[in-house]
C-alpha cells in the first residue's frame, strides 16, 4: 500500500512538473532558446497569486487567468523587443542573456517582495480524499487535474488553431514559413509569451503546494529543463510524460535513498538521458530538432 501512496504522490508532483516543463519545452523547441529565466517568471505568477489572495482575498485557483494574461504580455514584450534582437546568435549568447534576465528578476523580487518564504493557505488546504489507506489532498488533486487540462489544451491549440499551426511550421522550417506569409518575429513572440504564461500559471499552482521565495527560481528552471530533456523538445505529450516520470522517480528516490540526494538523482537522470537518447523519450527526429 505504501508503494501505491508513493506512486500517487509522485504522479501528483509530476503533474506540476509537466506544466512547468511544457512552456519551457515549447519555447526551446520552437525558438531554440533555453530560457533560464523560466523559473523566475513562474515565481512572478506565484507572487501575483500571493498578493491577490492576501490583499484581496481572491481564491488562488481564480487567479490563474490573471497570471496567464499578465505573464503572456510580459513574455511577448521580452521576446519581441529583446530576445528577437539576438535570436540568431550563437546558442550560449542566448543562454547568458536569459540568465542575465534571471538574475535581474530574482533580485527584483528579492528587493520588492523580500526573500521571505511565502505560502498561500486557503480554508480547504488541509482536506483530503481518503481511499482506504491512501490519502490524496484535494488541493494536490486539483492542481494535478488543472495541470493536465492546461497541457492538453495547449496541445489542442498547437494542433488545431491557425496560430498553433504557424508556431509548428516556424519551428520546422522558418524560411518556408516566411514564404507562406508567417511573420516569425511575431510567432516567436507569441510562443515565448505562451511559454511564459504557462510558467506563470505553474507559479500560481505552486503557491498551493509549497512555500516559495525568489531563491527557488533556479531549482524550478532546472526541473523544467529536466522535464524537457526527458520528454523530448517542443512536444506537449513529451512534457507530460517527462513530468510524470520525473515526479515519480524523485518521490521514489527520496523514499529509498533519502531526500538529500533528490537533485543529484534528477540531474544524473538528465545527464544519462542526454548521453543515451538526446531526443528524449517522446522526441521525434524531424520535430523541434536541435539546431546548432
Amino acid at each position, binding site marked *: 500500500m505504501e508503494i501505491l501512496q508513493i506512486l500517487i504522490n509522485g504522479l501528483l508532483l509530476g503533474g506540476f512538473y509537466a506544466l512547468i516543463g511544457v512552456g519551457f519545452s515549447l519555447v526551446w523547441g520552437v525558438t531554440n532558446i533555453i530560457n533560464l529565466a523560466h523559473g523566475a517568471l513562474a515565481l512572478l505568477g506565484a507572487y501575483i497569486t500571493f498578493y491577490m489572495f492576501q490583499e484581496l482575498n481572491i481564491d488562488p485557483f481564480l487567479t490563474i487567468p490573471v497570471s496567464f494574461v499578465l505573464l503572456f504580455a510580459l513574455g511577448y514584450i521580452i521576446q519581441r523587443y529583446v530576445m528577437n534582437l539576438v535570436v540568431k546568435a550563437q546558442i550560449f549568447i542566448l543562454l547568458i*542573456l536569459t540568465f*542575465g534576465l534571471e*538574475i535581474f528578476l530574482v533580485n527584483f523580487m528579492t528587493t520588492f517582495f523580500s526573500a521571505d518564504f511565502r505560502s498561500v493557505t486557503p480554508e480547504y488546504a488541509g482536506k483530503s480524499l481518503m481511499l482506504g489507506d491512501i490519502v490524496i489532498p484535494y488541493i494536490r488533486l486539483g492542481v494535478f487535474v488543472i495541470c493536465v487540462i492546461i497541457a492538453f489544451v495547449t496541445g489542442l491549440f498547437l494542433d488545431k488553431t491557425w496560430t498553433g499551426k504557424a508556431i509548428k511550421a516556424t519551428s520546422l522550417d522558418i524560411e518556408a514559413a516566411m514564404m507562406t506569409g508567417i511573420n516569425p518575429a511575431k510567432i516567436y513572440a507569441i510562443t515565448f509569451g505562451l511559454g511564459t504564461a504557462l510558467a506563470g500559471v505553474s507559479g500560481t499552482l505552486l503557491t498551493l503546494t509549497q512555500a516559495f521565495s525568489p531563491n527557488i527560481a533556479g531549482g524550478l528552471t532546472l526541473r523544467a529543463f529536466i522535464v524537457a530533456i526527458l520528454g523530448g523538445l517542443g512536444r506537449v505529450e513529451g512534457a507530460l510524460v517527462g513530468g510524470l516520470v520525473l515526479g515519480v522517480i524523485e518521490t521514489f528516490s527520496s523514499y529509498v535513498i533519502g531526500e538529500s540526494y533528490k*537533485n543529484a538523482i534528477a540531474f544524473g537522470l538528465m545527464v544519462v538521458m542526454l548521453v543515451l537518447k538526446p531526443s528524449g523519450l517522446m522526441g521525434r527526429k524531424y520535430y523541434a530538432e536541435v539546431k546548432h
Partner: protein
Amino acid sequence: MINRKLILFAIFLLLLLALPFVISGYWLRVLTQTFLFAAIATGSDIIIGYTGYPAFGNIAFFGVGAYVTGVLMTKYGFSFAATLPLCALSGIILAALLGIPILRLKGHYFAIATVGVMETIRELIDNMTELTGGGLGLTLPIMSGEPEYIYKFFYFAMLGCMLFALLISFIISKVKPGYALRAIRVDEDAASVMGINTPVYKTFAWALSAAIVGISGGIYAYWLSYIDPHTVFVGTYSVKMFAMILLGGAGTVMGPLLGAFILELISEFVWSKFIAIHGMVLGLLIILIILFIPKGIFQTFKGGFSFRKLMANLKENSL
C-alpha cells in the same frame, strides 16, 4: 606591433606588482577578486572560446578545487602550497572522466550537461558531511601573520594564478594543438577529416581549463578560510565568467582577462554605490553586453568607438 603589445603588457604587469605597496586593503581585496575572475575566465576560455564548447558549469572545477584544498588542509594536514597541484589534478581527472560521455554532446546539450554536473557534485559534497562538513561548511586553518602580509600574500598568489592561466592560454594560441582546437570550433567534422582526433583534443582542452579553474578554487578557499557548497558552486560566477569572456573577446589570449577587469571593477563600483539593487544592475549589465557587444569590445571598436557599430551588432543577429 608585437613589440608594442609586449611593452604595454610589461607596463601592466609592473603596475600590478607595484600596486600592493601603495593601495589600501580594500583595493587589494578588489584586485585579488579581479585576478580570480581573470584566471577563471582565461582558463575557461580554452574550452569555451578556443574549442567552442560552452562549458556553462565550469565553476564545478572551482568548487572541487576549493574542497580539495579545504579537505586536505583540515583533515590531512597538508600545507597550502602542496594542495594546489592536487587541485589541478582533480580538475584534470574529473574533466577527463566526464569528458568521455559529455563531450559527445553539442551546443545547448553540452552547456546544460555541465550545469547538471556542477549541481550533482555540489549535492554530493553537501551530503558527504563526514569529509566536507556538508551544509555546515568547512573552516580552513587561518594563515598566520599580520593582516597586511596576508592580504599581500593572496594578492600575489592570485596574480600568479592569473599569469599562469595567461601563459597557458598564450602557449595554446601558438602551438599546433591550439590550431586543432580552433579547427574543432570552426567545423568539428572537417577537423576530424583532417586527421585531428577530436575526442582527445576536446578532452585535453577541457582538462587544461579544469586544471586552471581548480587551482583558482584552491587559492580562493584558503583566502576565504571558510567554504560551504553554496559559496564555491555558484551559478552566478559561471554567468559572470561568460560575460567577461564575451566582453573581452572569446578565443583570444588577453580578451577574457580584460573582460574580467572591466566587468569586475564595474560591478564593484555598482556594489559600493547601489548595494540594494546591485543584483538587478548586474543582470541588466549582462543583458546589455550580450545585446550590444557580444563580439567583445576590441573586435567591435577596432577602428575607434562609435554608436553605429553598437547598433550594427544589435541588428546582425536579429530576426
